[in-house]
């Protein structure tokens, strides 16, 4: 068997770089990366078959449930090549598959010399995979194209081999064919990783330089820092120093993941492993920073990463106002592990106290919200997501707006909004539907290419604001789920944007304010006023609901006054029943939010802020 027992395999800190191969796997969410990784753990025998479980490397519940990887990981796999019979150490560096996590992807890429491009051969390459592939090619990584799921009846390996060959510039016959499920072709893939991916190069005698590519907070151990050693040597006895801060840390433990943490004497050139220094905050062990020896520090740091910039903002509010401190604590805890998450307290007249949070993208937002709710047992209301606007006033001042209710009322010279370059891959029969959707969303067509006979790549520039709300849901529904989307920010552009306020009895409801394109303001106003008319119960007085741009009313609905709110009869002196009903109503009344004199049930806010897709999901969940 080509597997090597761990104890007999080359040991950390004593492995010749020529024996090391560092690679990552680029794949779309459901293209079988975790299954393939499971199979690699099995075939190299680093996990005992008795302990094997599905998606072994995905630690968070949410990863396992949604079948996606959020945080990257690195696993050391000993392997005896079937080609030359020699022993090698393969470090598999896991990558998240989603567009929101491009930042994390680029970190795994920087720690690898090669990438396995994994594509489901029943579906073909997806837009986000394509984006990550381009990223890997720019990083000069050796790409090994692999078609997965060849066991599926719907597999079309020839078609997609041709597609991949065209993208990478290789021959269709260069594409390996595997099945993560059955294990077919996996040993061959490991052999090809050894054969094709270059060994790491580095100066073993230079001062140590190791790149931090991930930093994870662990409740028991503090921050666990994942590094890739470029030059020199990190030893368990060393004191280390973070280049950017100059701060010295004691090395409490150094080791490799295989796939459980295994302490080692150290890490040498080309090796990938972890450090524990006792710090409690991931920001003290910043991703992209260079780790060096305290006694013999390097003078030239490694090229790090750009800090991720939040692109999408949303207000998160606890459904129960008393949970505000719990939410704060939960966000603090989450940030220990997620440097991309930013938040600051804000208050809303309608929703109470909460936080304005910034996210990398929509999936990031969804995952953060779900983790907060799940891990801290919170129920949250989130406001409609929005982007960051730069507003230039006539006095020349520029204001950054991350919350529509902060949009200035004064004389505005111009408003700039972020623009993205988006790539959509889909079967060609949906070109019309996709173009129609993009036109509606103020898209500008950049170009279109056929990947194969019946699959196209369509490129558009779009205002980010147009895709943060429900673009993806609409794209999916208009292409029967076949289209995939990727986008990258390309800068800001001026837009004819206005703030639409929603007023209840003349009082603006901050949670419903939105910044929209002038041409869409009317439609937004009509939609929201109609929605709210359905959602807000009648009061003892008439309640006008208006949509307004500044002082100009653009839409109006009226909730007529309630005329009957009384139970006529009391059954045979059953006063208790009547009082209990009153007590129940009293509780209900306490949960009402007051907007001026108008009582609005919390459910009305939740429902008014939901997208059509949310509502469908909620309906499906009830069934």
């Amino acid at each position, binding site marked *: 068997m080509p597997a090597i027992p761990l104890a007999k395999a080359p040991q950390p800190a004593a492995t010749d770089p020529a024996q090391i191969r560092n690679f990552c796997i680029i794949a779309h969410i459901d293209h079988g990366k975790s299954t393939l990784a499971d199979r690699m753990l099995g075939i190299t025998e680093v996990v005992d078959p008795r302990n094997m479980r599905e998606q072994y490397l995905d630690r968070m519940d949410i990863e396992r449930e949604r079948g996606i990887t959020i945080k990257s990981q690195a696993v050391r796999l000993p392997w005896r090549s079937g080609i030359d019979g020699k022993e090698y150490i393969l470090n598999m560096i896991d990558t998240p598959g989603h567009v929101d996590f491009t930042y994390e992807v680029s970190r795994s890429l920087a720690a690898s010399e090669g990438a396995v491009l994994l594509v489901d051969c029943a579906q073909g390459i997806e837009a986000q995979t394509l984006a990550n592939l381009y990223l890997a090619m720019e990083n000069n990584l050796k790409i090994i194209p692999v078609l997965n799921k060849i066991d599926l009846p719907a597999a079309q390996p020839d078609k997609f081999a041709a597609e991949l060959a065209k993208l990478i510039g290789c021959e269709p016959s260069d594409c390996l064919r595997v099945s993560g499920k059955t294990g077919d072709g996996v040993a061959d893939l490991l052999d090809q990783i050894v054969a094709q991916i270059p060994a790491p190069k580095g100066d073993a005698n230079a001062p140590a330089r190791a790149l931090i590519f991930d930093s994870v907070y662990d409740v028991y151990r503090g921050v666990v820092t994942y590094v890739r050693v470029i030059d020199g040597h990190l030893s368990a006895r060393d004191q280390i120093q973070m280049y950017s801060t100059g701060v010295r840390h004691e090395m409490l433990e150094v080791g490799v993941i295989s796939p459980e943490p295994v302490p080692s004497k150290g890490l040498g050139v080309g090796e990938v492993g972890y450090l524990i220094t006792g710090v409690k905050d991931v920001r003290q062990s910043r991703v992209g920073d260079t780790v060096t020896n305290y006694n013999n520090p390097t003078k030239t740091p490694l090229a790090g990463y750009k800090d991720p910039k939040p692109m999408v903002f949303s207000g998160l509010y606890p459904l129960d106002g008393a949970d505000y401190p719990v939410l704060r604590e939960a966000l603090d805890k989450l940030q220990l592990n997620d440097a991309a998450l930013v938040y600051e307290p804000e208050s809303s007249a309608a929703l109470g106290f909460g936080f304005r949070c910034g996210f990398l993208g929509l999936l990031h937002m969804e995952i953060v919200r779900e983790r907060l709710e799940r891990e801290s047992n919170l129920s949250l209301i989130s406001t409609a997501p929005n982007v960051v606007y730069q507003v230039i006033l006539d006095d020349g001042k520029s204001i950054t707006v991350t919350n529509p209710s902060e949009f200035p009322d004064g004389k505005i010279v111009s408003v700039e909004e972020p623009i993205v370059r988006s790539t959509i891959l889909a079967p060609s029969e949906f070109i019309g539907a996709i173009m129609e959707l993009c036109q509606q969303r103020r898209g500008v067509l950049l170009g279109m290419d056929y990947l194969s006979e019946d699959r196209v790549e369509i490129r558009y520039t779009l205002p980010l604001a147009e895709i943060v709300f429900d673009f993806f849901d609409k794209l999916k529904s208009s292409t029967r789920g076949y289209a995939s989307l990727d986008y990258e920010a390309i800068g800001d552009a001026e837009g004819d944007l206005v703030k639409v306020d929603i007023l209840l009895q003349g009082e603006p409801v901050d949670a419903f304010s939105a910044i929209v394109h002038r041409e869409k303001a009317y439609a937004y106003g009509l939609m929201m006023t109609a929605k709210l008319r359905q959602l807000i119960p009648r009061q*003892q*007085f008439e309640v006008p609901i208006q949509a307004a741009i500044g002082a100009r009313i653009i839409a109006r609905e009226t909730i007529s006054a*309630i*005329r*009957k*709110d*009384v*139970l*006529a*009869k*009391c*059954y*045979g*002196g*059953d*006063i*208790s029943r*009547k*009082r209990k009903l*009153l*007590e129940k*109503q*009293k509780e209900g*009344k*306490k949960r009402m939010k007051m907007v001026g*004199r108008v009582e609005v049930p919390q459910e009305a806010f939740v429902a008014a802020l939901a997208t059509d897709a949310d509502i469908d999901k909620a309906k499906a969940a009830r069934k």
Partner: protein
Amino acid sequence: MSDLSFYVHIPYCVRRCGYCDFNTYTPSELLDNGTLETVSGDYIDAVLLELALAKKSVQGEVPTIFFGGGTPSLLPAADLGRVITAIRHGWQVSENCEITLEANPDSVDEVKLAQLREAGFNRISFGMQSAVPHVLKVLDRTHQPENIAKVVEFARIAGFESVSLDLIYGSPGESLDNWRTSVEAALSLNVDHVSAYALIVETGTKLANQIKRGELTPPVDDLMADMYLLVDELAQARGLSWYELSNWSKPGHESRHNKAYWLNANWWGVGPGAHSHLDGIRWWNVKHPDAYKLALFSGKSPEHDREVLTSSQRSDESIMLAIRMREGIALKDLTQSQQDRAVGYSLSGHLDPSRWDEGILQLTPTGRLIADRIVRELVV
């Protein structure tokens, strides 16, 4: 000596009406498969046993007795009379004690009414509900509308001092004009008292299922509001003033028993599922007649459960109940903050402004229609 009213529950009907979820049973629903006559004697024995228990624990002077149901008029007058007699033996009954019988117009005739008067009843309340055949049909009521005039006349002849009619509005398919017909029919009989209740669709009833299946349309609140304002207006024009949210009477003909409930007086409810109240303690009996009889025949109390009201529950209840009355609530009995919250309703026409100036919170007709909302505002 303090007052103690009695409510006597008669849990039997010939058939169950489609809208009704009261604690009542038809002969076929009862386990013993008996006829009403055979059930009656047995049931009255049980009632007398409960009265014997009551006598041991509470004294008082009896200002009112009320027989409700179910259909109390189904039972032989003599059986009902045994209950009145037992109360007279156990307590001091006021000279002018109001003794009411709820009656189904189908179940009484001239002779029966005379017997009932003889047995001690001096007030009678007929379940008229409507004068419009299609409305009566939706409600599952079997009487002929013309019967009402007859039984009211017989009741007068028999010597009842106060005659009342019960009406229901808001039935599926009932128009405002239909309702006007019914109210005018009731008032034209020159009765002393009228009750008008908005139809409540209770879950689990035949009516609720018919609405769920789309066979009938649900009651419409705004239409019911118009119906309420109409009955109020027509009754006042005939000299019947409102004294409680759903009740109108000629002067001196207010139901004192009804008022006892709303004024939080003490009463003992006899019979299965009946509720009682004594000085801040409320209790209620087991619901099923068989369980009720079993308890009493084996020497036990038929009480199912009770609650002792906290002071805040008592104060909530007194607002909830008193607000329904013409007398209203004295502002001095409300906190300043409650008065502040109520004042808006005075400005919006839901409270009578001149009474407010006199220090009384009294609902106007539109205010009565949103009484529960105003109560929530006050107690929250």
